[in-house]
């Protein structure tokens, strides 16, 4: 290939720089807003440099007390993050990584559980928990179904398989708004039946959900998860199918000749080859569930997730809530940014072709 001239290289870098600034500027602006005092945010001339910083907005959004030193909260979060990173890094290097990854998940769980016991929190903390529960459940269910269905559809070559795939793609192509009302009314029908038949208020002997008196669908995390799984499923099935198509059939045949059942061949030979695909598909599913606004707003009038909570802050005229909305935006974006940075290598690997070829 001909070596590009200095001029064209400068041009290329300049273009990239403009694009980077263009994409990152709104985020920087939001971050600045979140750490300013209200007077600087509301100033007639934008205060870009040398303003006094504060964590008031973060405190106001998350916590129910005014006299907490936000440094202690930051240290708490950083300690948890560093412990998890260390566990994760150990897990990546040792032979049996599952105990380490499980430990990291456990640390996050304990940290989230202890946080409200240490500091008084606002309702928004519940919305964070909702966000996490909805995201994790949607990922687990979507990936499990997607893996099995994608595998089946990759190996089955009959006409009905093709029909299923094309129908799935068609549903994926429809606008999300088209599904919201049917889901809402469907859920409402079920709730009405649960109420009128009395099933909803049965006292199940073994299943005892704390804080839940009656069974219902609307306004629960379950409703959000079910709806998100349904709209996301075509995507995961197509993704996994295309990855499974790249796994030569001989590999599972070899496993079966070696003495494995079909399920053992799938679990012990095929799945380990699929990790890049699982991570890539998982990240996309995570983004979808974590960022979902419309379904949550309609199906769960009070059990919000964070995007809905933020929007409720930006509607007002008060500049105080603007700093709060900025603080909320930053704090819900950061975990996602961290996860993406951690997994971006796998993401590229998973999206690149031939990732699973031997």
């Amino acid at each position, binding site marked *: 290939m001909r070596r590009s001239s200095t001029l064209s290289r400068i041009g290329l870098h300049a273009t990239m720089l403009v694009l980077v600034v263009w994409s990152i500027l709104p985020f920087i602006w939001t971050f600045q807003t979140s750490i300013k005092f209200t007077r600087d945010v509301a100033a007639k001339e934008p205060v870009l440099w040398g303003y006094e910083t504060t964590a008031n907005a973060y405190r106001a959004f998350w916590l129910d007390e005014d006299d907490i030193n936000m440094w202690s909260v930051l240290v708490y979060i950083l300690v948890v993050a560093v412990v998890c990173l260390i566990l994760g890094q150990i897990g990546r290097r040792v032979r049996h990584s599952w105990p380490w990854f499980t430990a990291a998940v456990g640390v996050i769980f304990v940290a989230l559980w202890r946080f409200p016991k240490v500091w008084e929190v606002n309702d928004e903390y519940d919305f964070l928990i909702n966000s996490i529960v909805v995201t994790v459940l949607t990922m687990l269910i979507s990936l499990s179904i997607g893996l099995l269905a994608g595998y089946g559809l990759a190996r089955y070559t009959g006409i009905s398989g093709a029909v299923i795939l094309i129908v799935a793609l068609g549903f994926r192509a429809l606008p999300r708004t088209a599904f919201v009302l049917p889901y809402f009314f469907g859920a409402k029908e079920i709730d009405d039946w649960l109420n009128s038949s009395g099933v909803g208020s049965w006292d199940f002997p073994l299943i005892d959900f704390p804080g839940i008196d009656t069974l219902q669908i609307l306004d629960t995390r379950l409703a959000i998860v079910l709806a998100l799984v349904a709209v996301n499923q075509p995507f995961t099935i197509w993704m996994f199918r295309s990855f499974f198509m790249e796994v030569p059939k001989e*590999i599972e045949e070899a496993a079966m000749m070696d003495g494995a059942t079909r399920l053992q061949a799938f679990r012990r030979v095929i799945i380990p080859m699929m990790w890049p695909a699982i991570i890539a598909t998982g990240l996309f599913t995570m983004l979808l569930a974590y960022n979902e606004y419309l379904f949550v707003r309609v199906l769960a009038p009070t059990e919000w997730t964070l995007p809905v909570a933020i929007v409720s802050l930006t509607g007002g005229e008060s500049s105080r809530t603007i700093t709060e909305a900025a603080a909320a935006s930053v704090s819900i974006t950061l975990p996602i940014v961290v996860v993406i940075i951690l997994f971006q290598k796998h993401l590229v690997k998973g999206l690149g072709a031939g990732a699973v070829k031997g």
Partner: protein
Amino acid sequence: MSTVTLDKLTKVYPNGFQAITELSLTLEDGEFLVLVGPSGCGKSTALRMIAGLEDITSGDLYVGERLLNAVQPKDRDIAMVFQSYALYPQMTVAENIGFPLKLRKIGKRDRHEQVYQAAEILELTEQLEKKPAQLSGGQRQRVAMGRAIVRRPALFLMDEPLSNLDAKLRVQMRADIAGIQRELGVTTFYVTHDQVEAMTMGDRVAVIKDGILQQAAAPEALYENPDNVFVAAFIGSPSMNLYEATLAEADGDYLLRLGDQTLAVPDRVVAARPALRDYLDQPLVVGFRPEDLEDASVVPDHPDDQRLHTEIAVREALGAETLVHFAIAAPSVDSGDPDALDELGDEESSRCTARFSAATRVRVGDRVRVNVSTERLHFFDRKTHLAIRS
């Protein structure tokens, strides 16, 4: 280790395509049987039926006394080496070889020992901790072998295991695989389209065409006494020359009319094949191998009436021998091998290949006399393509 019996195995695909028709074969304990045939002849289907990866439409498959038709692949006690090796990319060489043992819940210590033994046989001990992607083609092939031999199965199946290797390595692995098989004494069913592999490796070679078994015999027997035109043409390289000809009797001597030439056929050749007398003055198929032809100037003391007269069209000096091609004015015979090169001939004349000794001085365009070892002629029925013998 046991005998394997295929009794009228038949495979018909759902779309009606009949891949295998009543294949019957018996493999003796410890025998190395090679199933050879042109591409698309159903040989891999036969192998996959034995493996359990394809259903058997009809017929029975026994290993020892056990009927395997409805047994799951994992329970058949059969190991298979795939053409693509099908190694598990995320596992090390040791884990790949040990996988069948792990599935059989063999303890870690025993497993390591058996994997190491297999690796020693295959000279893989240095590579045990590497991943398949770090290995060369030949090493990957040996890992696939290792996965098969580590569990000492009743039967090895090998599906063209050498076809992804380069020519030099293939020759070496050919000998290695045959050696390992002899050492372990495991009954082996080996599929290939390469007749050289079949001839060099097999205790017995079964030739198959269009899903129908043509002949199963020891390599020498297959070469010396092919049952039909297809086997005659398929086994041997370069192929046997096959033409339509007529055998006539004149004054008590037998003459073979091959186009515009005649060859004297000694009495004992006909005497050894009594049935040949029924074909007198009728068209039949005659075949002679390239090595049964020789430059008359190299071997001058050959009966003059057992010579062909022709003009050299192509000459290929291979060092130890020289291949020459010339035209014979007789119609050639289609052996039915789809892989065979199209004959460079027409209705009246066809190509003939001869293997001359290196001492020959013939040049392209020379008019030469070619000695024919008439003792070694092969005769076949023109319609049925079956050998004319007794």
